[in-house]
C-alpha cells in the first residue's frame, strides 16, 4: 500500500460549496431577522433561553432521526416511543419500591437509576424489533414503524390508564433548572444534555467506521453490500439509536412538564422530521449530518418561539405607516383577534416555503 504523501499544495477542502449548501443557514438568518422586526424584544438573552429550553427535546429526538434518515429509512414511532418511555418511567416511579403513590416520596439514587434505565431497555427492545422486522421482512421501515407507533401508544395508554404520573425530581431538574446563568441567559440542563448528545452523534457519524457505513448504506445500499458492509446490521443499529434518542427526549420532556400524561409528545414526530429535513438532510439517505440537524432545530424553534412572540394587535396599533382607518378596521378582524389559532397555519406556510426553496436549489445544483 502507498504511504500517504503529504503534498502541501493539495486542495484538501471538500468539494466546492454552493448556494444549496448554505440555504438552511440563510433560512435561519432570514427567519431570525423577520422576527427581530416583527416581535418586540426578540433579540434578547431571554428569548435565547426560551429557544434553548424548547429546542432541547426536539434536538435530541432529531439527532436520532438523522441516523435513520441518513441510511434511507424512516422511523415514525419516535413520538409515541418518547411517550411510552416517559409513561414507563412515571408508572415505575409511583410504585411502592420507589417513591410510592403520587410519587411524593424521595426514592434512593438506585431507585432513580432503575426507573430511568428501564425505559431505555424497553426502547432498545422495540428498536431492535422494528429494525429486525424491517431488514428481515423486506417491507419499508415506514410500514413497520407505523405499526410500532401504534404498539407504543397502546402500551402507554394501558400502563397509565390515562392517569397523570409523577416523575423523579432528577428529571424535573433536568428539564427546568439552569446549568449555568449569565444574567438573564440561563442555559438549561436539558440543552446541555442535547449538546452532548449531538456532539457524540456528530463524532460518531464523521469519524467512526460505523458512521461512514451509515452514510454509504444510505448513499447506495447495494454498493455498500457488495463492498462487504453488513447493511442490515447498520439499519438495525440506526433504528435502535433512534429509539434511544426518542426515549431520552421523552424523559426530558416529562421532566420539563413536571409529570407525564398521554397528551405529551403528540407533535414530536413531525416536528423532528421537519427539523432534520429543514437542515438539508436528504430523505433519500446518504446526505446530511448533525450540524445540519442543529441548524434545522434552531430554525424550527426560532419559528415556534417567534410566532408565539408576535402580537399583531400591538404591531397594528403602534404602526406608524398604516392610516388610522385601516388600523381600526383591522383590529376588528378575526385574523387579528384570533391570531393564536392561525399560528400552526403560518408555521406550515413558512416550512413549506423554506423546503420548496431548498429543494429547488439542490436540484439546480445537481443539474
Amino acid at each position, binding site marked *: 500500500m502507498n504511504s500517504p504523501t503529504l503534498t502541501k499544495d493539495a486542495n484538501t477542502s471538500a468539494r466546492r460549496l454552493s448556494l444549496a449548501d448554505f440555504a438552511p443557514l440563510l433560512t435561519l438568518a432570514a427567519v431570525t431577522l423577520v422576527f427581530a422586526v416583527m416581535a418586540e424584544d426578540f433579540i434578547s438573552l431571554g428569548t435565547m433561553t426560551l429557544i434553548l429550553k424548547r429546542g432541547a427535546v426536539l434536538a435530541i429526538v432529531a439527532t436520532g432521526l438523522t441516523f435513520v434518515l441518513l441510511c434511507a429509512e424512516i422511523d415514525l414511532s419516535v413520538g409515541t416511543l418518547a411517550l411510552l418511555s416517559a409513561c414507563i418511567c412515571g408508572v415505575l416511579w409511583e410504585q411502592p419500591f420507589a417513591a410510592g403513590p403520587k410519587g411524593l416520596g424521595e426514592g434512593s439514587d438506585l431507585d432513580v437509576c432503575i426507573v430511568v434505565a428501564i425505559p431505555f431497555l424497553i426502547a432498545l427492545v422495540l428498536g431492535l424489533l422494528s429494525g429486525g422486522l424491517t431488514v428481515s421482512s423486506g417491507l419499508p421501515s415506514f410500514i413497520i414503524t407505523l405499526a410500532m407507533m401504534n404498539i407504543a401508544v397502546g402500551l402507554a395508554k394501558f400502563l397509565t390508564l390515562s392517569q397523570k404520573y409523577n416523575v423523579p425530581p432528577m428529571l424535573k431538574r433536568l428539564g427546568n433548572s439552569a446549568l449555568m446563568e449569565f444574567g438573564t441567559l440561563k442555559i438549561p440542563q436539558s440543552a446541555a444534555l442535547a449538546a452532548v448528545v449531538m456532539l457524540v452523534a456528530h463524532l460518531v457519524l464523521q469519524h467512526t467506521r460505523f458512521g461512514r457505513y451509515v452514510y454509504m448504506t444510505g448513499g*447506495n445500499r447495494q454498493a455498500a453490500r457488495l463492498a*462487504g458492509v453488513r447493511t442490515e446490521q447498520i439499519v438495525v443499529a440506526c433504528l435502535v439509536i433512534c429509539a434511544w434518542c426518542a426515549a431520552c427526549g421523552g424523559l426530558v420532556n416529562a421532566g420539563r412538564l413536571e409529570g407525564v400524561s398521554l397528551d405529551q409528545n403528540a407533535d414530536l414526530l413531525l416536528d423532528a422530521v421537519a427539523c432534520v429535513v429543514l437542515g438539508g438532510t436528504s430523505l433519500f439517505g446518504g446526505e446530511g449530518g448533525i450540524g445540519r440537524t442543529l441548524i434545522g432545530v434552531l430554525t424550527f424553534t426560532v419559528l415556534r418561539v417567534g410566532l408565539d412572540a408576535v402580537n399583531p394587535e400591538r404591531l397594528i396599533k403602534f404602526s406608524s405607516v398604516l392610516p388610522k382607518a385601516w388600523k381600526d378596521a383591522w383590529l376588528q378582524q378575526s385574523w387579528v383577534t384570533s391570531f393564536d389559532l392561525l399560528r400552526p397555519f403560518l408555521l406550515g406556510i413558512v416550512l413549506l416555503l423554506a423546503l420548496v426553496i431548498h429543494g429547488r436549489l439542490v436540484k439546480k445544483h445537481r443539474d
Partner: protein
Amino acid sequence: MPESAASPPLLDCRQIGVRFGGVVALQGVDFDIRPGEVHGLVGCNGAGKSTLMKVLAGVVPEYTGEIQIDGKPVRLHSPREALAQKIAMVYQELSGIGALSVAENLCLGRQPTSFGRIDWSRMNREAAASLAELDIQIDVRRRLDSYPLVIRQMVEIARGLHSGARVLILDEPTSALSLPEALRLFELIGKLKTRGVAMVFISHFLEDVLAICDRVTILRDGRLLQTRPAQELDRATILHQMVGEERESAADEKTEITLPPAATGAPRLAMRGLQHAGQFADVTLDVKPGECLGLYGFVGAGHQELMHALAGAIKPDRGDVTLDGHALRLGDVPSAVRQGVVFVAADRAQTLARRAPIAHNVTLAHLKRALGGWIVWNREYHVCQPLLERVGCRPPNPSLRAGSLSGGNQQKVVLAKWLLGPIKVLLLEEPTRGMDVHAKAEVMELVAQQKRAGAAVILASTEPELILAHSDRIATFARGRMTRQFSGQRVTKQDLMHHAEDDGTG
C-alpha cells in the same frame, strides 16, 4: 434486394442512418419485411441491430433515411407513433407487469368498460379468446409473474397482436428459454406467419435464426452486409460474415488467439457443482494464481450470475467453493472481501454511491486497514489521492462526487477501492462496458497488473473480443451451463460464439 416473386413489403426502410454524438451507429441500411415473413437480424454486439429496431419502435427519432409502410412514407418520432403504425416490440427484458393478471396485461390501456367501470368478465373473456386463437390455454385471471418466462413472452406477443400489430419485433426471444420452451415459441411464430403477421427475429442464436427465419439480414459495424433467404445460408457463413476478417490488427479486437499452455500448480479458487435455480447449474471450474479465466456467453447464459455467487452477493443452492484449499463461506460478502475475493459488478449503479465523495467510495471496503479506527478527512484525502493517481483517474481529486466522473474513471475508482486491501481473486463482470478504447485499455492494464502480482482473475463478458484479448483460459456458457473449456490451443471468435449457443443436445 427485393425478390421479384414475393409480395410487396409491408415495411420498407431505405438508407437508414443514425449517429450518436460523433459515433456512427447505422449507415445506409436497407431493410424490408413482407407480410407473413420472419426476417432474421444478426450481427455482433455493436453491429447496429438494436439501433435499427429502436428506430422502428420509435425510440430513436433522430434518424436519416426513409421508412415506408404499405408504400406510404412515414416518420416515426415516438413509440406511440410506431404503435399507431402497428409496429410492436417484444423486449428482451420483458415489459409486462408481473403483479397484474394475464388479462389485465393483455388489455392494458384498452380495458373494456361498462358505465365507466372496468368490465372484468368481458375483459377476461376477450383475453382468453385472443390467447385461444394462438392455442395458448392458460388461466387469464392469474398473475402474469406466476407463469414461466415462455408464457410471459407469448403473452407479450399476444398483447402486441391484440393491439392490432402487423409487424412484431422480437428482441432475443429465445436467449433465456430452455430448448422445449424455445420450440413452443417457434410453434407460435409459425402460427402467426400463416396469419400474415410480419416478424423481425433478432438473435445471437444462429441455429434458431436459421430454423425459423425466411430471410436473414447480416449487419456489421452499422452497415448492411447482405440480406439473403435463409436456405442459402449456413451457420459458418453467417458467423464468418458477422465477425469479418480484416479486423485482427487492432489490439483489443482480436478475433483469434492461441492460449498459453495450462498453468500447473494448486488452484487459487475452485468451484464444485455450483448451482442456483434458474441461473446456472453444475458449474465446476478452477482458476490458478496469476491466471485470467475468461467466461463467455450471451446475456442470461449464467456466467454473470455465477460471478455474483462467487462474490457472495447471492447464495447458490448447491455446490461449494474453495479458496487456496479452504472452503469459502457462500452468500457472505464481508467474509469474501476479507479473504480477498473481490468483485467489480457490471452495473456501476451497484458499485458506486454517486453522490458521495470519491474518497468515501474508495475507502469503503477497507476502512479500518486504510484509515484506522478514527476517520480524519485529511488522512483519507492523502490515502486516496496517490491511489487515484496510480489508477489514472482523472481528475484525481478525492473530494469530488463520484457521479461527476466519466464511466471509465468511475470504474477506476471501483478498482482503486479494492487496491487498498488484499486481492486474491478479482472477479470482473463486463469491466469495460460503455467505455471508449482508451479507457478500456487503461482499466484492463490495471487488471493485468493485479494478475502479474499473483491475483487470479475471472473475467465474465458478453464481448468475445474482450475475452480473447485478456484470457489465459476460456470457458463458454450457454443457457446456465458450461459448454466448453479452452486451454493451450487456438481459439477464434467463431469458436466462442459456436459454443455459446450450444444447447447441450449436440
